[in-house]
């Protein structure tokens, strides 16, 4: 039954993709319809009228879009249901599908870990399918055919779901690459823009390299096992060295997809250029699938984790978290900023996962479970709020035709609904209490604080440092999102587009976002719901659950013991409401002190204009100066002088370009190296036939010499 739900989710998303292909086939359907009714004129009168109505020229595309997204939404709901039920049942369901290699059918396994990620995907897809119809409505069919978008969205979602189901290396890779390729087409969807094409290319290239690394990782395991099924791989007995090689390959492969620094560069290029609801899925969900892969590979397949791997993950995660947030802060393109922020969050998840590994390898499975819990919980939360933010960004782009936050402003009054939803997202991602982001971060800190239990002094001093880095990351993220929200919604409009913007008419777009925002808040108040589910994952994966549902009762969250730490969001919420209520009531009781509105003080310069506001680059200037080494900064101030002695400044032009270090340090050298080598290799093809004959001659002589 559960498996049926899981399959249903895959098939529904697949069907939605295929159905989208019918976009241009209206005429064919019409003909088919005619033919059918000519043949059976008196049957299905009722159905006929419905059908003909549906096939009317004006309604057909609209209707088809609706149906496609309904199917997608159903797929999401099915996935979420399947995920929850498998986690509640704590079952492991296996199956085989008769496809694949002759001696290796596709193996399927649906357990709690898969189920958890199924839930993440399910929620995200449901929200996106609510959101989608309104968003894609704006696309011009001849320029951006819906058939393409719908098809690859469906394939993308089903690819992600299949990755979670896969139980053999071959099937896993097929699903994995299906996911990559489908999302590549989505990135390249608006391909008339050269930047998008470049991003798509980079994305596919990195996906390919990552996939190769993963295949090799499986290959390492498989060479110690008989067969490619995960069951066989689990049995593989590896020496520590080989296991470490396999881990390194998996980290490279999955890390590339997840976008850890320094192999993250494709991510901020690719995610922003896709349509917003796809960016949401990519940033919010696809990265999680990479995380799933890593967890599956390390905890499940290799099994015996080494603490050194944990340290590697911890360091990589810390660098990613810090790097991600620092880069995010410097972006002015909203979606790019969000993409970098995904790098940051993935970094946090990796950090905590690293902690979990360290504890696991040091023989503290309970703390390992805590770490895993924090990592998975943060993954879940990130999926929620990053989806929400991307959807919000989509609404903003939809309404203002603009993504540069330095050209927005004042939208809080023109788009009140959106602004509230977006604020929830910003607060969650800044990990403020009462919202979900805080809970997982709190759990991460709690995990890090258990470090005293370890024997290794280096680890004991390393982990708190990384925890401090986590604190820095969180604070910077808060700064970053204050900037984002402030620039977009507060102040005065900085461009005509944002001045003329208004709230979206499509209710679905708001509903999709509202669903996510509501979940952000709900999970922030009742984190126990999710923790309970994750516990079953930890139980299956590590054989150890948290001693949760503590002595303090269900209102409290006390992961280790109530002595050590506890947090009760509902109580905090109640207290906050009381405090705010009292102050509100008390201060406004006097009718004489009703608020008065007036022009703000403009220092006597004659009116406040939007150009006097702080821009985002001004906002981040202090941090830019403090962490100057983190970026490649090109700042240019061009002054035009005038006046008698050429002393007065007539105009000032300020240009700021900020680049990623890994681009010039890692990618460009490789690209140049390949080009250089290709140039050298090109010299083989001289064009002279005598030289070619010479090659053949020399080869012959050489070979003869070799064998004799």
């Amino acid at each position: 039954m559960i498996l049926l739900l899981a399959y249903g989710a895959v098939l529904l998303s697949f069907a939605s993709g295929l159905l989208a292909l019918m976009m241009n086939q209206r005429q064919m359907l019409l003909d088919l319809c005619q033919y059918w009714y000519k043949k059976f004129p008196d049957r299905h009168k009722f159905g006929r009228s419905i059908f003909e109505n549906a096939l009317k020229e004006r309604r057909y595309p609209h209707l088809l879009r609706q149906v496609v997204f309904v199917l997608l939404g159903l797929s999401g709901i099915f996935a979420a249901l399947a995920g929850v039920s498998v986690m509640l049942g704590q079952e492991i369901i296996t199956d085989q599908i008769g496809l694949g290699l002759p001696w290796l059918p596709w193996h399927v396994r649906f357990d709690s870990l898969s189920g958890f990620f199924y839930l993440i995907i399910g929620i995200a897809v449901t929200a996106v399918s609510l959101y989608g119809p309104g968003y894609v409505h704006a696309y011009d069919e001849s320029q951006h055919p819906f058939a393409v978008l719908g098809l690859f969205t469906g394939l993308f979602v089903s690819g992600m779901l299949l990755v979670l189901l896969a139980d053999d290396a071959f099937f896993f890779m097929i699903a994995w690459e299906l996911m990559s390729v489908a999302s590549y087409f989505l990135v390249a969807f608006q391909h008339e823009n050269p930047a998008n094409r470049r991003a798509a290319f980079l994305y596919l290239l990195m996906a390919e390299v990552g996939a190769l690394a993963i295949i090799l990782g499986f290959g390492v395991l498989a060479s110690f096992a008989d067969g490619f099924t995960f069951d066989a791989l689990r049995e593989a007995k590896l020496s520590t060295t080989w296991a470490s090689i396999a881990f390194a390959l998996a980290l490279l492969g999955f890390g590339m997809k997840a976008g850890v620094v320094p192999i993250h560069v494709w991510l901020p290029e690719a995610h922003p250029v896709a349509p917003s609801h796809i960016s949401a899925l990519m940033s919010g969900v696809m990265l999680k699938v990479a995380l799933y892969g890593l967890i599956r590979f390390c905890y499940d397949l290799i099994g015996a984790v080494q603490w050194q791997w944990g340290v590697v993950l911890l360091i990589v995660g810390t660098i990613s978290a810090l790097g991600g947030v620092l880069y995010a802060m410097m972006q002015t393109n909203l979606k790019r900023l969000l993409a970098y922020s995904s790098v940051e969050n993935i970094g946090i998840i990796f950090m905590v996962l690293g902690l979990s590994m360290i504890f696991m390898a040091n023989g503290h499975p309970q703390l390992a479970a805590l770490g895993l819990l924090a990592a998975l919980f943060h993954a879940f939360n990130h999926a929620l709020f990053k989806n929400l933010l991307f959807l919000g960004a989509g609404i903003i782009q939809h309404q203002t035709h603009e993504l540069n936050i330095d050209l927005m402003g004042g939208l809080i009054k023109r788009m009140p609904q959106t602004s509230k939803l977006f604020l929830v997202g910003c607060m969650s991602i800044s990990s403020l209490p009462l919202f979900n982001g805080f809970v997982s971060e709190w759990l991460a800190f709690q995990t890090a604080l258990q470090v005293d239990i370890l024997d290794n002094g280096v680890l004991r001093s390393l982990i708190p440092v990384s925890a401090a880095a986590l604190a820095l990351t969180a604070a910077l993220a808060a700064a970053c999102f204050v900037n984002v929200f402030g620039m977009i919604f507060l102040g005065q409009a900085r461009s005509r587009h944002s001045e003329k913007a208004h709230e979206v008419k499509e209710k679905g777009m708001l509903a999709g976002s509202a669903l996510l925002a509501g979940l952000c808040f709900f999970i922030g108040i009742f984190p126990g719901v999710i923790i309970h589910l994750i516990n079953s994952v930890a139980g299956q994966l590590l054989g150890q659950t948290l001693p949760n549902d503590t002595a303090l009762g269900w209102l409290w969250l006390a992961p280790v013991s109530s002595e050590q730490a506890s947090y009760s969001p509902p109580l905090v919420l109640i207290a906050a409401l009381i405090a705010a209520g009292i102050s509100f009531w008390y201060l406004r009781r006097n009718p004489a002190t009703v608020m008065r509105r007036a022009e703000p003080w403009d220092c006597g310069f004659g009116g406040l204009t939007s150009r006097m506001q702080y821009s985002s680059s001004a906002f981040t200037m202090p941090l830019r100066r403090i962490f100057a080494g983190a970026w490649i900064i090109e700042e240019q101030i061009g002054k035009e002088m005038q006046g008698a002695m050429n002393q007065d400044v007539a105009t000032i032009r300020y240009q700021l370009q900020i680049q990623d270090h890994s681009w010039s340090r890692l990618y460009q050298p490789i690209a140049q190296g390949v080009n250089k080598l290709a140039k050298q290799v090109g010299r083989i093809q001289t064009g002279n036939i005598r030289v070619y004959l010479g090659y053949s001659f020399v080869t012959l002589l050489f070979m003869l010499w070799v064998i004799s």
Partner: protein
Amino acid sequence: MIAAYLVLLIPSVGILVFVLTGHKTDTGKLNVRFNAICLLATTWLAINVLNQGTILSSGKAFLIDPFNVYLIVLTAFVGLTTSIFSAPYMAHEKELGKLTDKRLKLYYSMYQGFMLAMYLVLTTNNMGVMWVAMEGATLATVLLVSLYRTPESIEAAWKYFILCGVGIAQALFGTILLYYAAVQVGDVENSLLWSVLYENANKLNPEILEIAFVFMLIGYGTKIGLVPLHNWLPDAHSEGPTPMSAVLSGLLLNDALYAVVRNKMLVDGASHSNMAGLLMMGFGLLSFLVAAFFLHRQKDIKRLFSYSSIEHMGMMTFAFGIGSSLSTFAALLHMTVHSLTKSAIFVTVGHAAQVAGSQRIDNIRGLIKTQPRIGWGLLIGTIAIAGFPPFGVFTSEFLVLLATMHSYPWLTPLLLLGIGIAFAGLFRHIQPMVYGDKPESQMPVKANLWPVMIHLALVLWLGLAIPGFLANWFSQATILISGSTPL
């Protein structure tokens, strides 16, 4: 067995008909019909093999075993679909005034001639005849390469002719040595028959066979396009008419590799050293890597894909060289999917070039906007050939990688490097061609893209599931070649 004779007879009749009747408006369709009948005949042959197993003709002149039967069907199939593509394509070329009736007559008769040579290479049991047929294939196609009579095409044809001629002469020397070795042990009459040689392989003198194999490898390797013997290949593929490029890439290279593998089986039987395998691995890997780099510098779309053919042939050679059952299985599968995919790509490439009126990559832009089917066909074909699942090329590459990991783990990084670089090389050129806004001058052309769709659908099918009978053939061929079953 009648089926086998029929397979050879039909193209011969085809040659005669085309030579005698000259070019008419419906010659293209007639060509399609000949190929269709041939496909039927091969299917019949395949069914025979399916029922009876290996067939050896009465005079032992022909041998149909699981290794070649699927190649025969594949040849007929690609021959058919390419002829479907070529009919409107050549008609369009004639409209443009590039070709005359006389040349079209040459084209169609040589098309059948080439098919005949291919069938002969595959069906014959005689290593000498195999050589003759292989040389015949060169001779049949060399005039087609220069069909347009441009300076470039003549140059390409000349290079093709000389390099392949000289190369294949080495193969004849190898064959003579093989014969020499065989004469030492057995009866003179049947000493060049592969079935006899294979039975007596362990009696043959290993030293002679090793030398013979070097000559064979160099000789047939020139036709496979192994680096550094490949130089003719991009020229010949890029300058001839596109249907020719499709069959050259899809069929001729396969058949040359087929010949090498047949010889390798003999050498492996005679000598216990893994010399033949190592040589093939070396050549294969070198070709694979060098071709991957070449991809980056291409300016001509057909050259681009001909280098990709070199790359894939390199991979197959490498896989056959490893010699384990898994890698052999992978190589057999790769032969199939590569042929299908590459010929499909060449079909779209041909149309794309017609759309843009040029083969230069820089001039082909915005195909998806100009003619979506061609654009998507090219893009998806490239995705498939670059080894993305769920297409079959992925399956075979995956298996090759795992097999390498099993047998020669330290070579896998090189292989991965090659795959990555090749992929980047392909896509950096493909993307600008299919994406973007369309240039003013580009106009849609009349194109029949069913072959492309069928090919890609087949490749997709092979990627998702290998049908039982094919898997069975592959396994039997694997047993034949490597001596053990795949897993």
